[in-house]
């Protein structure tokens, strides 16, 4: 019996090891055969009842065997990739049981892997870095500093630069400007963000019509959300009370963590103060159970959809159909959701149908908790004027889209973006609709980072901070290693190094 490895196409009628691209350990003489008819003394012989293991190490391209759980030492080195486990039987009636890991191995393979994982990690930790003294440290400091500057953490960047004796590449004022814009975007105050951008970087958006379009679409979404400044002032609310941008739990990818933090605290405080103004709406927000307030809620919805009908028609027939359904069904929420389901793909329909009940339950169970969030869930903040403004803005956006198409040709990304944004209006409760995730404050981040990058580019600064670039590079590199069959990548992930 011979146990070993073969490349594709090796003659299956001969014991592994005898032919080219095949390797084997033979039980009768205990020799190893490395693509040759003559074997080398390797290990003990093996016979009935013995458990022979064959382990290929994809990191150093070697192979060793085990007998009854004892490692016999390296049998082959410099193995080619893409080998298949092979067992060759010569004696009539021979039987072999193969275990590819479905049962625990007799040999402690886990322990062997632990050793290699440690080795690879030690190799990474001890990777030789620049010879010249301080060079490495300076580079790391630059990476940190540029990251802070990029995302506009001015005070931190300044403090860091001071303590590490570095110069910040960008002027402080410029950082502050970017930070101001970023804050506005992340707060959902898109109108102001666009305006400020145009003020501070006059030609930037003119040269980037697609970016402007993206910003405006976002503005539309924020209007629906009731957070954009234009609808907020119409709603007569304290402008900050609507700002619900949460602290992002993702420490690295979210550049906005620290700037938004302070704001959030502030918002919470002012939010509390402003609840009194909307005591009437509070009942309304719990409308699913409170009959009294319900009509008011639906009324506003009703109006908005009516107004929207022609426009939405031009975008998507089936959507307008839904809105019509909604209007005709008036307050019958259940039917509304049901018809939505029909209009959408079946899976969405299912989700809608079931999610409605879920929310009802939730509302009942956690009435107090959801109060404040229900408060915000008024289309455009619940103000009629704001809704009108939003509708108007939507028309402008539609026009802009058409103009863009004429000037720059078809743009599927833009088209989809707009379509998705308008789809929000097709639902009585856009936040809980299949397209509701657009309203999630987290969606402001890509917009924010696109705008930030564009501003930096005009200053001839990198679009991405070197730190993010390095991370991306490392991730890509690991992927490339995996595709090229370099085994050590299995024991290294970028996440392991992000604490």
């Amino acid at each position, binding site marked *: 019996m011979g146990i070993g490895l073969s490349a594709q196409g090796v003659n299956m009628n001969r014991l592994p090891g005898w032919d080219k691209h095949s390797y084997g350990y033979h039980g009768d003489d205990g020799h190893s055969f490395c693509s040759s008819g003559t074997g080398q003394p390797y290990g003990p012989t093996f016979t009935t009842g013995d458990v022979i293991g064959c382990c290929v190490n994809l990191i150093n391209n070697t192979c060793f065997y085990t007998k009854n759980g*004892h490692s016999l030492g390296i049998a082959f080195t410099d193995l080619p990739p893409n080998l298949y486990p092979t067992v060759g039987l010569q004696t009539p009636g021979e039987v072999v049981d193969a275990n590819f890991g479905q049962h625990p191995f007799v040999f402690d393979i886990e*322990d062997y892997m632990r050793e290699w994982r440690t080795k690879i990690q030690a190799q990474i930790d001890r990777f030789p870095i620049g010879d010249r003294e301080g060079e490495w440290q300076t580079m790391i400091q630059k990476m940190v500093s540029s990251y802070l500057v990029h995302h506009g953490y001015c005070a931190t960047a300044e403090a860091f630069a001071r303590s590490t004796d570095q110069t910040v590449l960008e002027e402080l004022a410029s950082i502050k400007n970017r930070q101001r814009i970023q804050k506005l975007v992340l707060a959902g105050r898109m109108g102001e963000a666009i305006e400020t951008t145009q003020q501070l970087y006059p030609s930037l958006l003119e040269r980037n019509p697609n970016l402007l379009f993206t910003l405006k679409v976002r503005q539309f979404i924020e209007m629906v959300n009731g957070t954009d400044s234009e609808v907020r002032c119409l709603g007569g609310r304290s402008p900050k009370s609507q700002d619900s941008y949460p602290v992002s739990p993702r420490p690295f990818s979210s550049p906005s963590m620290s700037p938004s933090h302070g704001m959030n605290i502030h918002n919470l405080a002012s939010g509390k103060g402003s609840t009194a103004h909307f005591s009437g709406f509070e009942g309304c927000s719990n409308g699913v159970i409170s009959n009294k307030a319900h009509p008011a809620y639906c009324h506003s919805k009703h109006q908005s959809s009516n107004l929207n009908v022609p426009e939405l028609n031009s975008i998507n027939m089936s959507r307008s159909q839904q809105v019509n359904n909604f209007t005709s069904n008036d307050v019958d929420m259940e039917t509304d959701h049901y018809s939505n389901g029909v209009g959408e793909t079946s899976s969405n329909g299912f989700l809608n149908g079931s999610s409605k009940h879920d929310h009802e339950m939730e509302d009942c169970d956690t009435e107090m908790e959801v109060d404040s969030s229900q408060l915000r869930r008024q289309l455009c903040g619940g103000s009629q004027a704001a809704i009108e403004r939003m509708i108007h803005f939507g028309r402008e956006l539609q026009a802009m889209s058409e103009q863009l198409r004429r000037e720059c040709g078809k743009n599927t990304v833009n088209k989809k973006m707009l379509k998705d944004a308008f789809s929000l209006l097709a639902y009585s409760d856009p936040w809980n609709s299949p397209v509701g995730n657009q309203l999630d404050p987290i969606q402001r981040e890509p917009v924010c980072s696109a705008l930030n990058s564009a501003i930096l580019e005009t200053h001839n600064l990198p679009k991405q901070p070197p730190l993010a670039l390095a991370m991306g590079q490392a991730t890509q590199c690991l992927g490339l290693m995996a595709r090229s069959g370099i085994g050590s990548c299995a024991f290294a992930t970028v996440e392991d190094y992000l604490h």
Partner: protein
Amino acid sequence: MACLLETPIRMSVLSEVTASSRHYVDRLFDPDPQKVLQGVIDMKNAVIGNNKQKANLIVLGAVPRLLYLLQQETSSTELKTECAVVLGSLAMGTENNVKSLLDCHIIPALLQGLLSSDLKFIEACLRCLRTIFTSPVTPEELLYTGPDHQTILFNHGAVQNIAHLLTSVSYKVRMQALKCFSVLAFENPQVSMTLVNVLVDGELLPQIFVKMLQRDKPIEMQLTSAKCLTYMCRAGAIRTDDNCIVLKTLPCLVRMCSKERLLEERVEGAETLAYLIEPDVELQRIASITDHLIAMLADYFKYPSSVSAITDIKRLDHDLKHAHELRQAAFKLYASLGANDEDIRKKIIETENMMDRIVTGLSESSVKVRLAAVRCLHSLSRSVQQLRTSFQDHAVWKPLMKVLQNAPDEILVVASSMLCNLLLEFSPSKEPILESGAVELLCGLTQSENPALRVNGIWALMNMAFQAEQKIKADILRSLSTEQLFRLLSDSDLNVLMKTLGLLRNLLSTRPHIDKIMSTHGKQIMQAVTLILEGEHNIEVKEQTLCILANIADGTTAKELIMTNDDILQKIKYYMGHSHVKLQLAAMVCISNLVWNEEEGSQERQDKLRDMGIVDILHKLSQSPDSNLCDKAKTALQQYLA
């Protein structure tokens, strides 16, 4: 106060000592305790890293005063602590400083300090003790008084107290605890038996050790936990077929022998593995197939490598330092591997030039290497096949005889034991060894104080005399002298007695040899035989003695020495009726030889023995249920019929 005034030279240095040093000492005598404390603190700051200042203060007599303050009941703990700190600082200086401190009997004072309830003071005392005991000038006996420190520590609850430290968050603490266990368990069944049942955080200690030898743990930790498990196994607390030995400890130790490890680690790994597998053939077999261990050990002989000599002086130095250690460790492990299994021995000998290497090892200057090489050869010499081939090809006997000429007992014991094997009759080395004066040497060994050497000496002579020619036998007898032979026959060591009887038996074989020897030494030999048969000895000794008589009875002229000795004849008769079949048989052979037909005077002998009532006994024995005895009796009776 030996530290006070050492030499006049010191005193002249003293004259140059600045007033400040004296000022520090003077302040220790201030009546105000607060000022004394401040003085000690200032002294502490003054001596840190300043060897000259330390020497000055010692000369000026600061040590006795500090010790006085440290032991004084009335001293505050703060003062005591500061005193201990200063003393510790002084100990950090030169070796002379440590000597001076020891002369002032600092150890008992510090040990007393450990009984304090103040942790800071205890810590300062411990630090100081550690500094003193890590100095090469401090004799260990100062701390360890009894012969069995393991038991003392064990009886004071060391196991329980150290066990929980194995789960400490600090690697250093875990490591030290592990080291403690390896020292405690070594060759100590009592400690080892306790360790297997100790629970730490719900886990048994062996399981914790197994976790510590996982392959991602630091090498030091893997190695030390493998040692713990090895010692526990050798002390009988863990079975040799337990998975934690077979699948964990053994492979771990083999890995420690790999080229990737540091030289020190490879030495320790090989030595520990040799110790683990020494008594167990199954472990020897597993080790022999694991990771090409036998070939891996061949690398131990490649230091200093030719590369290191050229490229790097520092490395050459390092290699040279470890070269001896590596070689002796490899020899030890080969010795253990080849202790029982013929195939493994063959594999070792077939490893690149291994016989040459071992033979070279026999004449190395380092006693450790020589001893290990002899052990290794001894282990391999248990193979009949290798004795006939490799041992002959490499003329192993030559360096071996040299080793035997002048070596410490340790080496002599193993070397002479190996000589016994080389003198076995089938060994082709027997001849040349005889020619090189082995008889004298072995006879010399029989006079050694060391019983192991006496046994080996007489054993080798016994092997030498087996089927040897007359001349050799005569040489042995002459060289040994009958006086020595008698001394050995009354040796307190049973082994010596047995092998001496064996020698006599081998000397007295083949008729001409028997007659020749008995003609010259007959009287003494008969005396010796009588003495032993009359003495209080076990069955084996008596049997061997009766066999000697049987041999004598086989001689032509020698027979008469028995026939004319009525005392002996009565004894033979007695043993024919003994309750032990072995002795009956031996006595029967004796009679059989005496009554044998076709030999001159057989008739007279038959008659005499019949008169003694031997024939009656023979008739009785021919009815014996023991077929052997029955056959022998019938054969003897037939001699009467013919």
